């Protein structure tokens, strides 16, 4: 009975995190269209793709096909996510961005192929399973920590500048949430033999499912708050921030200022 209650809670985390990703994706999609921003459009596609992959696998009982199908959606989601990072942080300095993108494409294709090849070994936990899971780790780790690194680097460069505190907080929140989610495939290493993923009858399997869904829920909440930041939260982050009133100079006023500045008259 207790296991079923726990399973219900973890399932709620799973559904909740997917719903949050879709809602955040819709919000970003609308903002992207209004502001004509292609990079954030890619981020919205990434959220939709990952969410649909999970929905397909978890709720439509696709059996053996569920895993590979989810992997296709995750592949699209991860690729668009990396392109979003590259076009947001590395325009005109794309060398490292291309390297990361190529690595992610290779690791992603590898995951799809392995999911197709090893359909029948899903519960045996033999070498092919651990090979697939071991290669899944760098795939997820690189994708999410590419954002962690980019956000953290940008935050370090911007933190001393006169920029609203909620924008700086957005960098930090995105960096932390991505870093934590980058470890979310580790529970797969400990999945007991002969038991399929997400089986409430087995305590260890349930615990691993719980860890994964809790990480997803944490990620989804922080990411949603970061992008869909309500005014009250912006005010909270800006509580110690004040800025001088914006003056609009006319051409003449500005030239006068410069004259005083440079000629001392």
């Amino acid at each position, binding site marked *: 009975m207790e296991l079923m209650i726990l399973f219900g809670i973890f399932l709620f985390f799973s559904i909740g995190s997917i719903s949050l990703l879709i809602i955040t994706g819709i919000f970003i999609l609308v*903002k992207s269209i209004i502001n*004509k921003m292609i990079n954030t459009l890619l981020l919205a596609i990434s959220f939709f793709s990952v969410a649909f992959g999970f929905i397909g696998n978890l709720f439509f009982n696709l059996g053996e096909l569920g895993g590979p199908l989810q992997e296709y959606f995750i592949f699209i989601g991860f690729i668009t996510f990396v392109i979003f990072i590259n076009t947001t942080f590395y*325009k005109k300095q794309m060398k490292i961005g291309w390297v990361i993108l190529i690595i992610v494409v290779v690791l992603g294709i590898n995951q799809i192929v392995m999911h197709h090849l090893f359909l029948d070994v899903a519960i045996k936990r033999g070498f092919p399973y651990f090979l697939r899971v071991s290669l899944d780790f760098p795939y997820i780790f690189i994708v999410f920590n590419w954002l962690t690194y980019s956000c953290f680097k940008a935050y370090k460069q911007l933190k001393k500048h006169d920029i*609203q505190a909620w924008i700086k907080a957005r960098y930090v929140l995105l960096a932390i949430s991505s870093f934590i989610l980058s470890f979310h495939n580790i529970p797969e290493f400990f999945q007991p033999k002969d038991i399929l993923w997400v089986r409430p009858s087995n305590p260890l399997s349930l615990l691993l499912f719980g860890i994964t869904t809790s990480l997803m829920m944490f990620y989804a909440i922080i990411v949603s708050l970061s992008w869909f930041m309500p005014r009250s939260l912006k005010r909270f982050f800006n509580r110690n921030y004040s800025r001088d009133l914006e003056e609009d100079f006319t051409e003449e006023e*500005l030239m006068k200022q*410069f004259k005083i500045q*440079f000629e001392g008259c």
Partner: protein
Amino acid sequence: MEVIRFLGDMLEKLIAISPPAARGLLKLSIKDELGSFTNLNKVNYNDFLKVLNNSFKNRLIKLNIPSYDKIVNELIYELTRNQSLFTMSGI
């Protein structure tokens, strides 16, 4: 507007002018390049590159500011390093 604040900060350090004057110079350069009715919140990275390379540089030349090329290059370098500000402040 956050990008203008950021570049204003950088410009203040480069030519020792007050931050409001630095921002004013940037805003006038944007209007020169992109038109008087340009929404400053909608100016993107590529627009800014154009502004810095053209109208902003011309204004520095007119103001007899020495090493204007170095200043423009420095601002472009910082803008490129911190281009994510357009997205992070724009959503």
